[in-house]
């Protein structure tokens, strides 16, 4: 179903939508082409899935193109992805040649759209090589980095930098994730869609069905962490925190994640988690299929306290999702969690299992604070981390790029 701005009026209010329409009017008819590497699966595809129709609804002419490549190309770009996040990855000259060749082939297919567009937004490294090939481009080209590239594996960044530094601008989610580049670097945090399966309101019967399905006791408090089984998400640390709480309160723990089976590292972490959980019937380790959005949604709504005890994190959209459901979050003091979790207001930042246990106990003893902080958390998300703010940032960025990106005040 085509998404429309008006669908969000009941959530963000007419003033916010009016602002988006007015910004859209200033850009009426401008063409914008988004390019990424997949139409399904992953955070970028999820963003473009709503952003393109909403940009069109705001009066622009937006389209979404996807580059194609052989499996080897995607292995190489997966290595880029890991290398940019600091992992040591082996890349050969031949790999870089394959990267350029695939970009060239895709460019021939996409040439008319890319040459004519007023704005081209290239998402992540996979299609970044397209700019170099587009000599007759008319519009502004922007590179959008969705990951933290602040501490990359140097050979990967050294190889990629010549492709991205020629862009007219780049976008990062947070200042902490950026690299110094010779063009304006804008900061646009990610967002969630409040009407998506992951975040929409659910019928109480559906939530209760999920409780029954996983054998959760409605009379006892529930702690939930949703994240893939990854060492940086510290699921074993969450179990340690649970055990500290369990000494004094009859809590239950759900660790829900997915996609670990085809990832050797994920599989090993899952085994560690299962071993740490042992035979405790109150620890529920749930390996969910990738499309289990409504189940995740229901689990977050069933939670008394949401935990995201990461030791390293990107933006942490599972925190945003939990906060949107009116839950306070006990989160790791790292990455984008810091931007969302504010001590004593929307949750607590912690550094250790002991710290997490302490804060969970605080909530269990002060149930009113769960509701108070949960309510603030929801408003923080409404104001800052819903897709309407994300769309506003993009519209603003296009207006700025069309004029002068270094001006302090632009009247349009």
């Amino acid at each position: 179903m085509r998404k429309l701005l008006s669908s969000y009026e009941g959530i963000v209010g007419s003033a916010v939508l009016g602002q988006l329409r007015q910004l859209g009017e200033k850009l009426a008819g401008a063409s914008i082409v988004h390019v990424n590497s997949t139409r399904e699966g992953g955070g970028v595809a999820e963003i473009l899935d709503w952003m393109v129709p909403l940009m069109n609804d705001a009066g622009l002419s937006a389209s979404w193109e996807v580059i194609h490549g052989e499996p080897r190309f995607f292995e190489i770009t997966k290595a880029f992805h890991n290398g940019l996040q600091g992992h040591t990855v082996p890349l050969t000259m031949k790999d870089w040649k394959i990267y350029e060749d695939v970009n060239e082939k895709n460019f021939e297919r996409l040439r008319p759209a890319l040459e004519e567009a007023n704005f081209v937004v290239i998402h992540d490294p996979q299609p970044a090589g397209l700019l170099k090939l587009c000599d007759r481009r008319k519009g502004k080209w922007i590179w959008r980095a969705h990951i933290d590239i602040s501490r990359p594996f140097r050979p990967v960044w050294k190889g990629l930098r010549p492709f991205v530094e020629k862009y007219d601008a780049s976008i990062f989610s947070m200042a902490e994730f950026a690299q110094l580049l010779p063009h304006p670097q804008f900061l646009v945090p990610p967002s969630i869609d409040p009407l998506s399966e992951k975040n929409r309101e659910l019928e109480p019967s559906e939530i209760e069905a999920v409780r029954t399905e996983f054998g959760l006791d409605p009379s006892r408090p529930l702690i939930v962490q949703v994240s893939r089984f990854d060492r940086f998400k510290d699921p074993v640390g969450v179990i340690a925190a649970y055990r500290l709480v369990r000494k004094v309160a009859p809590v239950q723990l759900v660790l829900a994640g997915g996609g670990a089976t085809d990832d050797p590292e994920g599989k090993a972490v899952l085994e560690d988690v299962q071993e740490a959980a042992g035979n405790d019937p109150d620890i529920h380790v749930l390996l969910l299929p990738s499309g289990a959005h409504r189940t995740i949604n229901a689990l977050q709504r069933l939670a008394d306290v949401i935990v995201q005890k990461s030791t390293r994190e990107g933006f942490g959209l599972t925190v945003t999702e939990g906060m949107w459901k009116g839950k306070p979050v006990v989160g790791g003091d790292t990455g984008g969690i810091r931007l969302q979790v504010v001590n004593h207001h929307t949750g607590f930042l912690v550094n250790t299992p002991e710290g997490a246990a302490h804060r969970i106990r605080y909530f269990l003893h002060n149930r009113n604070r769960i509701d108070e902080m949960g309510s603030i958390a929801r408003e923080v998300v409404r104001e800052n981390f819903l897709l309407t703010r994300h769309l506003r940032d993009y519209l603003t960025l296009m207006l700025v790029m069309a004029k002068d990106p270094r001006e302090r005040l632009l009247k349009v």
Partner: protein
Amino acid sequence: MKPFEVMDCALLTRMSGIPPAINLRELRDRLAVCGENVLFHHYCETTLRTTFDNPDYRNDFAVWAKLYLGDRVLAERLGILDPYSFPSMEELRAATLEVIDERLSELVMVPWARPGDEFFFMESTMVVFDTGARITNPNRLGPFIRKMTNSSVYYHFLEARRRTPDGKDDFSAWLGKCGEPYRPHADALSTIDYYFNSLGYLRREIARVLAYVKGASK
């Protein structure tokens, strides 16, 4: 009387290009040479940025001093600086440097942050646009403000203080031109402690103050 033209704005933040500071000395040295827009962003535009709107301190320097340098004394001294009370950004810069220099002289070691907790210098562009809405009756200003976006309130009530030659907010300036009956309204707006609150609070407070004066003058 010219109607009040309701404007709105959207803020786009960007990296300033200044390397991040890892300790108080670096913060001081970079603050001494950064552009005025960087200073303005970290002192004044924090309310409009994507962030929790009720932090301990309104300016980023105080927040960083508290959270990442662990220096609460410095945080308190920086946190009380009201950027709108300085005639110019240069004077605000001088006051900020004075606070930091004084603190550096009191300490035997320069406070530092852990890697990853550096201070990132940012600036922004504000895109301003006409909403098309016009207010002709001064008595309608308060009710209208209740429905305004936070960014509109920011533009007219806070940003105006830097934009206009006399440093006045747009609401007071317009009410001042509406004749003697509306002078108390303009005067009442000057009693609002506007720097230390969120924009949502400020919007409600402006509307409340105007409603109160209107009621009192009946």
